[in-house]
């Protein structure tokens, strides 16, 4: 079965976030395209690290890093569930009819 692209993206994003090392935050590795362009700050900076800090239970540090960490978890989790439920529904409509006849 082929997974939807977006579902794959969100799952890989969460896995990637779980793998972030938040110990040394002086010069962290970043895949952010703005960071690659040399722009040092954007409103999303620290969201990933905030979510990782939430995973390891450091709530206060997580809030200080980025206040939306918990919100992001809720919303992305909800989206993943929605995408999984959608896998069956967005298949070809006619299949169900064929099966019944």
């Amino acid at each position: 079965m082929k997974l939807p692209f977006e579902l794959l993206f969100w799952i890989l994003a969460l896995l990637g976030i779980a793998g972030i090392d938040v110990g040394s935050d002086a010069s962290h590795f970043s895949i952010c395209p703005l960071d690659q362009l040399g722009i040092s700050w954007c409103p999303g900076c620290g969201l990933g690290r905030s979510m990782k800090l939430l995973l390891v239970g450091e709530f206060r540090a997580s809030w200080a890093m980025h206040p939306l960490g918990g919100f992001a978890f809720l919303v992305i989790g909800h989206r993943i569930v929605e995408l999984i439920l959608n896998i069956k529904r967005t298949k070809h409509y006619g299949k169900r009819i064929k099966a019944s006849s």
Partner: protein
Amino acid sequence: MANVLKHLPELEGMELGYIQGILKNMDEEQATLFAQVYRARRKDNQMVLVLCLIGFFGFAGLHRFILGQIGLGILYLLTLGLCFIGTIVDLVNYKSLAYEYNVKVAHETLSLMSVNYELKSATPKNEGNEADK
């Protein structure tokens, strides 16, 4: 059996196939009503693409709002589309996003119509019963 090309000629790809599967069970009158309601409610994937592109100018996530995903819309808006990464992913994926929304709309339209019509009377099995009456 109604033809999707006659009622909704602007559809393409996966959506065309999906709507054809729905219209297969309808007569012409039902298909006309379905097409009217569906056309008024569906979102064109080009609109999703354009709103997604606006994300590169600072207002990210407008396409998520339009598609009814308010939570993700707020998250995108406040984080510049997850630092552009989310915007770029949705740029690749915009057709699936629109398709997912339109399938939802098609089902809503169907359930709206089934209040007015008994859709089952359009299937071949029950046509015989109508003829008896």
